[in-house]
């Protein structure tokens, strides 16, 4: 009862209702209902191919890029249906940033990577841009490491640094939500723990949805966890609850490592 009350007092950032997604004739997501709460970290877990990444990409409409994708149902973001006819896709993606599985800095300088977003949204003032670069690089704890080589190619950074740069690039457009698609799966343990620390500090200001293969990671960083299996959400709850006392047998089997 205690838990339920606190959940109800939280602000809902996304409300997903009856979401179905098809790749051609294959149904990848089945009747998804989910709430994503403001300034909390929501982890999406489940075995490969369960639809968790596909689901993540419905939240900023990244699936629009793929041919033959059909989506039914609706997702509201701050109360408005993002699949509605007149929804401004660019405004959505500005507010809902994304960090990808493999670090994908553009083949430009570190500085140019970060100011790319602000520039396309019309910011031209050099001082403002300089300020954004320093602020975001400090936020991702990369400033000290790169402040002397801001104009060198971003591709010269290590994998972990590149991923933090990508997070900084995402923060530069001042999003409200950050979607992360297995952001540490291509990184070594040290780089991974740095990103996890970062997630903790970021969750004060941002709503974060993270897809992860790594159950310990979900347990360590998230407030809420949703367990996906073959395109369905089996269980969504507070992370402690999911990991200590799951309601569903399948969830228990998965988190105790009996399959997946």
């Amino acid at each position, binding site marked *: 009862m205690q838990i339920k009350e606190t959940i109800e007092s939280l602000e809902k950032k996304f409300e997903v209702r009856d979401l179905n997604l098809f790749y051609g004739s294959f149904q990848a997501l089945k009747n998804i209902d989910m709430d994503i709460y403001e300034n909390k970290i929501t982890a999406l877990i489940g075995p490969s191919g369960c639809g968790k990444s596909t689901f993540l990409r419905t939240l*900023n409409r*990244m699936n629009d*890029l793929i*041919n033959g994708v059909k989506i039914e149902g609706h997702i509201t973001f701050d109360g408005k249906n993002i699949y509605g006819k007149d929804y401004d896709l*660019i*405004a*959505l*993606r*500005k507010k809902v*940033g*994304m960090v*990808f599985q*493999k670090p*994908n*800095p*553009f*083949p*430009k300088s570190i500085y140019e990577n970060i100011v*790319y*977003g602000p520039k*396309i*949204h019309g910011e031209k003032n050099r001082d403002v841009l300089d300020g954004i670069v320093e602020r975001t690089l400090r936020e991702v704890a990369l400033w000290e490491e790169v402040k002397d080589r801001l104009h060198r190619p971003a591709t010269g950074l290590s994998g972990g640094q590149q991923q933090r740069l*990508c997070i900084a*690039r*995402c923060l530069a*457009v001042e999003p409200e939500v950050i979607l992360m698609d297995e952001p540490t799966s291509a990184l070594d343990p040290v780089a991974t723990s740095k990103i996890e620390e970062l997630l903790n500090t970021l969750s004060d200001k941002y709503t974060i949805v993270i897809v992860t293969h790594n159950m310990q990671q979900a347990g360590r960083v998230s407030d809420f966890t949703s367990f996906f299996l073959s395109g369905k959400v089996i269980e969504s709850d507070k992370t402690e609850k999911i990991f200590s006392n799951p309601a569903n047998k399948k969830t228990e089997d998965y988190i105790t490592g009996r399959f997946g």
Partner: protein
Amino acid sequence: MTEKLKQRNQYKSIKNGVFYGIIGFLAAITLISLIVIVGYILINGLSHINWEFLSQEPRRMGKEGGIFSVIIGTIYITIVAMVIATPVGVAAAIYFNEYAKGGKVVSTIRFFTEILAGIPSIIFGLFGFAFFVVFLGMGWSVLSGGLTLSMMVLPTLVRATEESLKTVPMTYREGSLSLGASKWQTIIKVILPCCKSGILTGLILGIGRAVGETAAVMLTVGGSLKLPNTIFDSTRSMAVHLYMLASEGLSREKTYATAALLILMVLLINTAANFISRRLGN
């Protein structure tokens, strides 16, 4: 048993050696014929290239004087052709690769683009003559020639641009779009900068074809030896001049000098292109 194995090995190594010899011989023929042709032209031509040849206009139909107006004409025609072809070709490649993924229309257009690449240049010349020179009333002019050549180099340019667009990882597009960039911004600011060297390669191949083209240019630009002032003037390209000199037997010296200069020009363009594309690559 071992005797047989030994024999087989011996046979194998002989076979290997023979094939190696044949391949090497054929490769040598390619190289040697190239060296002989280029060498022959250069030996006969280089000694007649001097300041007078480069800076003076032709006199007595090219029998005397230099080829200054012809060099300028060649550059002029090529520039006009590339200025027209580049935006069209790059835009077409972007359309094929970024917008119209797959589909019947695209494969049909692509099929015709490919056919365009294989059409003999004299056909382009004939079309250019009938359409630009006569029908549109442009007359023999740099513009008529430039337009005709631009159609000829289009397939090369489209193909090269498309190939390099394909090498840009999908993750760059996703990264850009996820930041709220429009598709157009993504193409202009992220994708095209990655394709600089690929597009440049296409350009150079196009320039090579334009500089060396004879038949199509003769039919559309004409053969005036005067220095062209505007794009509506007739002029003569080096390749056409070379053809005239050789076929009319006007001057052996000037013929070889022109040929040598043409080779040097193509070499220079290619070297410059290589240099620039390596610079851009880094």
